């Protein structure tokens, strides 16, 4: 036997149970569709395959919730966990480092919370998919949705560049395929190809940047990269052109995934062309996962490069992200004003929201609250994701009954389905950011973090950015209100209007409405939870890392303004 082989703890597989379950369930769905459901008529086959998929999502959700329970018990009440699971498992689960598979993946509360979020959203998206017939390859379609989600869950959990890259690719390749699945419509194939071309180019750029990061630091672990870069002290990126190039290339990669201007060209076409549930999943799941991993890479690994000299346009990425955020939210909102197509409008609105979230990323890197500032971004992501899943369910409704997606197709909805119209109003108000709905508190939290700066050169610029964000929120009201106007002020067409929504459309809309209303009226539980998981998420470190830390901590490292405080052990016992 080789002496160098590392001992592997097989219990680690238990902690990725949701991902394992979903991957296996994808195969089950494909096989069941081929063997049993293919002979049925289209309607009942769609429902049967959808129901089977939902069972799998439910199982994975149950395992994620169970893991969440175990992990929170390990933190709050360790003796009880001892009695429940036995000593060896209990001590395994209460390990304080929160890393599995030799530090390549994170586990613990942050991952559990995100997994529950992904699976809940996936359940809604799968349910929406059963609303109307857009593809004949149902088994393959649902399997790809499940596998894309596996990519998202592991992407959000990754703590190392190789795992990050393969998870990112799994997620996006499944989504490229899924967006081309509506074979009766040419624009779906076009959307798939466009998404594919832009996506592969951006991942090639991302990879090249990543190779330089590896070359500069000699490691692929986020935490170790942060430690190595931290040794640079105040220098940061000054004079380091290749570091700057690596940073920009990685920013291009993430900018593409979250659709930030100027890497947004694909988004409107793909959102419009892809089937509504796939657009929903691209706009929510993939965006949430990409932002989470972007937070990890930029705040944890590249944190020392954010703003080392305390001036905004100093040698760091903060200035670039600020410019990107300003351009993204302004462009997204202005372009959305001109849209007559509902899905295209949502695409530009989602670009604009990426801009607000980038403000949060920039703010979190210099906030005096430390990593907890990222909690505001996480809160915003949750709220944004639910509101958008509901909004895209409306797009599925339009596609089902009108075979189109113009905003004008919503005319007179308030008379035909008053209850759902009210729900849509709530979703739109939340997306605008009107109190008392959750979107308001998300924006408020992000903008407050941006203003919570120590005295430094960045403060005034971030204040301007907040002002721009407020202005943009006002602009955004105009196009969201157009939807409300169509529903309430126009007459319904006498024939061919929207029919009654079945549960596949009504449930996602209602659930999203309930979530944004509940989180708006009582924002603090979700906000507290997100703040609590932000710290372990962004500081996860292997236990022996402190032991092997470089022998040259030197004055430069201790004098660094911020990241030093971050590298405290994740869960003080």
């Amino acid at each position, binding site marked *: 036997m080789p002496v160098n082989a590392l001992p*592997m703890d097989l219990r680690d597989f238990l902690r990725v149970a949701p991902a394992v379950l979903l991957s296996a369930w994808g195969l089950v769905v494909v096989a069941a569709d081929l063997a049993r459901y293919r002979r049925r008529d289209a309607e009942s086959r769609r429902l049967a395959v959808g129901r089977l998929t939902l069972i799998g999502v439910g199982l994975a959700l149950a395992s994620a919730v169970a893991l969440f329970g175990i992990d929170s018990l390990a933190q709050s009440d360790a003796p009880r966990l001892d009695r429940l699971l036995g000593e060896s498992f209990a001590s395994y689960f209460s390990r304080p480092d929160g890393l599995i598979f030799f530090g390549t993946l994170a586990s613990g509360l942050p991952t559990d919370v995100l997994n529950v979020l992904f699976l809940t959203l996936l359940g809604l998206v799968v349910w929406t998919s059963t609303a109307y017939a857009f593809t*004949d390859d149902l088994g393959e379609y649902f399997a790809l949705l499940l596998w894309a989600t596996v990519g998202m869950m592991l992407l959000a959990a990754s703590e190392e560049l190789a795992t990050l890259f*393969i998870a990112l690719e799994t997620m996006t390749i499944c989504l490229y395929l899924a967006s081309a699945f509506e074979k009766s419509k040419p624009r779906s194939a076009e959307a*798939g190809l466009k998404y594919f071309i832009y996506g592969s180019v951006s991942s090639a750029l991302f990879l090249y940047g990543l190779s330089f990061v590896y070359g*500069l630091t000699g490691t692929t672990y986020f935490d170790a990269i942060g430690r190595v870069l931290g040794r640079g002290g105040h220098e940061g990126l000054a004079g380091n052109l290749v570091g700057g190039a690596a940073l920009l290339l990685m920013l291009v990669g993430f900018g593409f995934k979250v659709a930030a201007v100027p890497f947004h060209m694909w988004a409107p076409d793909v959102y419009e062309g892809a089937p509504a549930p796939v657009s929903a999943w691209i706009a929510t799941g993939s965006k949430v996962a990409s932002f989470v991993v972007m937070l990890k890479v930029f705040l944890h690994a590249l944190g020392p490069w954010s703003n080392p000299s305390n001036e905004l346009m100093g040698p760091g990425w903060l200035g670039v992200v600020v410019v990107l955020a300003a351009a993204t939210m302004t462009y997204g909102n202005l372009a959305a004003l001109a849209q007559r197509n509902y899905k295209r409008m949502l695409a530009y609105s989602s670009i604009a929201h990426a801009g607000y979230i980038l403000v949060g990323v920039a703010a979190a890197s210099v906030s005096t609250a430390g990593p907890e500032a990222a909690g505001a971004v996480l809160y915003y992501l949750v709220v944004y994701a639910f509101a958008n899943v509901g909004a895209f369910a409306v797009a599925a409704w339009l596609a089902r009954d009108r075979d189109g997606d113009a905003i004008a197709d919503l005319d007179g909805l308030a008379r035909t389905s008053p209850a759902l119209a009210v729900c849509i109003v709530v979703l739109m108000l939340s997306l605008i950011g009107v109190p008392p709905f959750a979107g308001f508190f998300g924006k408020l939290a992000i903008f407050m973090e941006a203003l919570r700066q120590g005295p430094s050169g960045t403060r005034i610029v971030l204040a301007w950015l907040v002002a721009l964000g407020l202005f943009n929120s006002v602009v955004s009201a105009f196009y969201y209100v157009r939807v409300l106007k169509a529903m309430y002020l126009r007459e319904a067409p006498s024939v061919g209007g929207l029919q009654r929504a079945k549960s596949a459309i009504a449930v996602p809309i209602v659930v999203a409405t309930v979530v944004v209303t509940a989180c708006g009226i009582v924002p603090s539980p979700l906000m507290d939870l997100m703040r609590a998981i932000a710290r372990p998420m962004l500081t996860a470190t292997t236990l022996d890392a402190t032991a092997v830390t470089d022998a040259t901590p030197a004055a430069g490292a201790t004098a660094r303004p911020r990241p030093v405080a971050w590298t405290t052990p994740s869960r003080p016992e």
Partner: protein
Amino acid sequence: MGEVVVARILFLAIAALGLLAALGTVLSRNLVHAALHLVGFFFCVACLFVMLEAEFLAAVQVLIYIGAVAILLMFGIMLTRNTRGDDATSLSGPWRLPGLVAGLCLFGALVFGINNAVSPSGASPWAGEAARPSLVEREGEPAWAAERRRAVEDMGRVVGEEFLTRYAMAFELAGLLLTAALVGAVALAHRDEVGAAELPPTVEALPADSAEPVGTAAS
């Protein structure tokens, strides 16, 4: 000393061939020629892997890139019957010069950056005569030197160990990715009746031509 000169000359020759092949891929109007140039480029990269003492990776490169990727691309070219090339396959005229200039600028910037790289780890700079760490066993060498020696001498085994321990999840994900790509691509590329009816009638004998449900191909 003579050995070094030989190695350098060999490197320069391979690199020059590789770059020519890359340029050929990008510039040639005929797509089949482009694909053949691409095979040449892949092979040169495999040779560079050998020069970097990663023979295992070189073998994988030849097997997968030349054996699978290039063949797939050839199939793609044949199935779209775009063998001889048309206007769409060449570089678009007015943008040719600015594009090439932009490429040269990018290359220049990267070379400048590589020459002036500031390595925060305090390791040796990239430019100049940086030599690779020796593989000869020495007294008091750091732990990673022994690890590296074992990895170079027995790469297949170390790669296997790494994939089954440290990178177990990445490995599983790679498997899932390939499955998903297979399932999805088959589902997309098989032709259903709706799609076929819209097309102008053509005489084709494509492998993907069957109207069979995807099941027969996937299972």
